[in-house]
């Protein structure tokens, strides 16, 4: 059981990528809004969509971690 917990924790490490990706996307979106405040509506939709897509990798990590705990027990 203890090793399973370690494995599940390692699986969630993949969420690192999603965090970095969303951070970069948000940073550039802020820059874009600062440069062109009138386009903020379009930028927001694109950003939310991009974040939802980047978040998917973190979700995969979560699903895998959950499967490790639930299926292998």
């Amino acid at each position, binding site marked *: 059981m203890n090793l399973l917990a370690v494995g599940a924790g390692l699986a969630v490490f993949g969420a690192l990528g999603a965090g970095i990706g969303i951070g970069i996307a948000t940073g550039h979106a802020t820059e874009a809004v600062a440069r062109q405040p009138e386009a903020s509506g379009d930028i927001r939709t694109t950003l*939310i*969509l991009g974040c*939802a*897509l980047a*978040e*998917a990798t973190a*979700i*995969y990590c*979560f*699903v895998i971690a*959950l499967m490790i*705990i*639930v299926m292998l*027990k």
Partner: protein
Amino acid sequence: MGELASRLIEELNCETVFTIPIFGGIDVYESVVVTWIISVILILLSIFFTRNLKVNNISKRQAIAELIVTKLMGMVKKMIGEEGEAYVPYLTTILLYIGIANIIGLFGFKPPTKDLNVTIALALMSILLVEGAGLYHLGIKRWLHKFIEPIAIMTPFNILDLVTRPLSLCMRLFGNVLGAFVIMELLKLVVPFVVPAVFSCYFDLFDGLLQAYVFVFLTSLYISEAIE
């Protein structure tokens, strides 16, 4: 913790509600029954909104119906572009279904999208539509030629796309709904009052509708890529 794990397993398994006693018994799962409920809700709303439609002197009910239809279809049309206009009604239907399926958990039902079978079915429908649209618009010769574009060495990856696209579509939807559910359960365990309601707004309402939007957006992206 052990109690939570067993509850999670219980939630992962979809329960059989009843069995149709033909062909040796067909199991009807909970997700199917909830899908029927969603269909009934959508059909009743459609009937309610489309009774005696007029051209002049429209009623308030018709104004609301027109607003919903034009907004939703306009949104999908903007995603797919002019060429794919024939696919807008299907995509809007999928948007409505997934949207309602994701937030029906608020009313005490089990969201059907938390069942992997439902999301697999949705993803398979999407990829069949994408490839079918490509075949219909381009013809078999140009459709096959798409596999060796941009260069011949990309062919294995293009074929792999047929598998990875539906896989990522169904896993994204399933994982998001399940993830939101697990986080909400953990939160209810830690703080049983007020705080879960606030987070529920994000995880159940916002995230659920966003995932419906993302699913339709990706499908329309694939379609417009396939028919160009």
